[in-house]
């Protein structure tokens, strides 16, 4: 089961679209599990939120074995810099774990037209699939059409598809089959 938790108010249509796409991608039931507050403890001095701290500090939701929790926020996230600098943080997931967070701060503007809203929703779905994919042990993929391709990659198309490549789809299916429940 994938449980979506919003950290602020979201449009219901967006959540419904996201639930549908996640269900199609992983074959797992998806539901909106409510809304929580952004943890103040995770806030850094520059107005961004530390992604790791956010997942540690956020108020938990009730889960069962193999449940995955996806948090959605519009706050900008950050991670600690690596040997070559700080990678842009679109989302963060506990690899093979339970919780992931997706930030909408880097998305293109949602707009008001149907087309722009649909594009925005697709992008949201793609990043959500990416984060949940990490929760199911998926690594980044070199295929720019796959949702597991890094979101900052220059080869990513402007309106990427919210789908997994066949390799990642099979791998996730295998992992899900082998899960406890």
């Amino acid at each position, binding site marked *: 089961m994938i449980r979506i938790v919003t950290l602020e108010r979201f449009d219901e249509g967006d959540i419904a679209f996201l639930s549908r796409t996640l269900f199609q991608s992983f074959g797992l039931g998806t539901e909106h599990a409510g809304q929580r507050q952004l943890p103040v403890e995770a806030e850094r001095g520059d107005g961004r939120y530390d992604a790791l701290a956010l997942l540690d500090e956020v108020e938990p939701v009730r889960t069962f074995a193999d449940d995955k929790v996806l948090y959605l926020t519009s706050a900008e996230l950050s991670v600690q810099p690596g040997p070559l600098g700080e*990678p842009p943080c679109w989302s963060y997931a506990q690899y093979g774990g339970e919780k992931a967070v997706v930030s909408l701060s880097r998305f293109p503007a949602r707009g008001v037209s149907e087309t722009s809203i649909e594009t925005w929703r697709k992008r949201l779905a793609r990043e959500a699939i990416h984060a949940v994919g990490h929760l199911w042990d998926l690594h980044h993929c070199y295929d720019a059409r796959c949702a597991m391709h890094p979101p900052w990659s220059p080869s990513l198309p402007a309106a990427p598809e919210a789908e997994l490549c066949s390799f990642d789809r099979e791998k996730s299916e295998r992992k899900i089959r082998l899960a406890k429940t």
Partner: protein
Amino acid sequence: MKGPPGRHEEPKEQLPAVEGVIADAGDLAPGDRVVYPNQGVCRITGVEVKEIAGQRLELVRMEREEDGAAVLVPKGKVPAIGLRKVATGDQIEGVFHYLAAQYDDPELDWKVRHRDNADRLIAGGVLGVAEVVKGLHALSRIRPLPTKEREQYDNARHLLVHEVAVSLGVPPALAEDYVDYALMPPAGVTFKLKPPPKPVELPVRPRRRPAPAAESEDELGLDELGLDLGVEALPEGAADSEEGAEPAAEGAVADGAATEVEGEGLAPEVPAPDELPLPEELPLPEEEEVEEEEEPPRIRRAAPPAPRAREARKPPGEAKPEKPGLRRGRFPAEAPAKKPAAKAPAAGAKAGARAAPAPGKKAAAPARPERGAREAKGTKTSKSGAAKKPSRGSKKK
């Protein structure tokens, strides 16, 4: 019977030592973190003694950090399996500079690439793993990876991510972001890179030479059976050209070329009993010749002949003198000149009918020009194919 040596045993002596490899199991202490090649980061939990198959073995017990799987390694095997310490900060920094450096020269030969990548994963240290990831990633920009290499790429990425995570003390998801930030930097981002570390040296593998055909024929004892692979029947020129081509084939791609040479030459060269080359001097029945010419070329191979026919066709004593005749027969230039000789009357026996391969072959040569072309190249396939022709026709009879 002893099987082939294990993956870890075989190339160990040839591989250069990688930094951090544990040469003595005595260096290990409970709580140490080590990297087991192709398995990932493990934590030493202790040493225990077990009796296995009547032998008392001292085993180092490890626990794979990723999933808690238990790994037991005999103490004596520790230096051989390439167990090494977790990469240091300097090594990891070198890895990132290597990943971020320009790389546009992926190995295009899949056999070489797959073998080298397997060696790198086992004995290349963390840099070897990074080389696999970068090499396959670079290749994926040219064309999609085949399934096996896609899996290898994913495994290498998994190993690299976990080792980086352990070495830097960050979660694996973050380590993967670091790796891909170096591998696929966002548009407009440039790094101040240091010179990347020297690539991992791979062992020089001896290339397999295909066994000489004549030797293998002797080893098989085909002479005693009255069988002739026909290798000796090659014309001098053709034999020379084949000898000359052999090193070139080897030079190209070790295994692939060897396989190809074997595939074209040796495998089809083992003749079906009815394909055996026969002397052209033997008289051929006229009606046979006529039938052969009328008979359209058939693709299906003829069934093996009766034992009596085989005896008549190739008595052991006569086998040797037949070859010069055949050798002459292989020259395409001579083929038309010998055609009239094929019209010699036949004794009527089926064996005798089959015993006229050379004329029949020559008669068939114009009907199938591609065979003639192959024959001109002096390949073994063309020879055996040409030798088949008369026997098929006579078989029908």
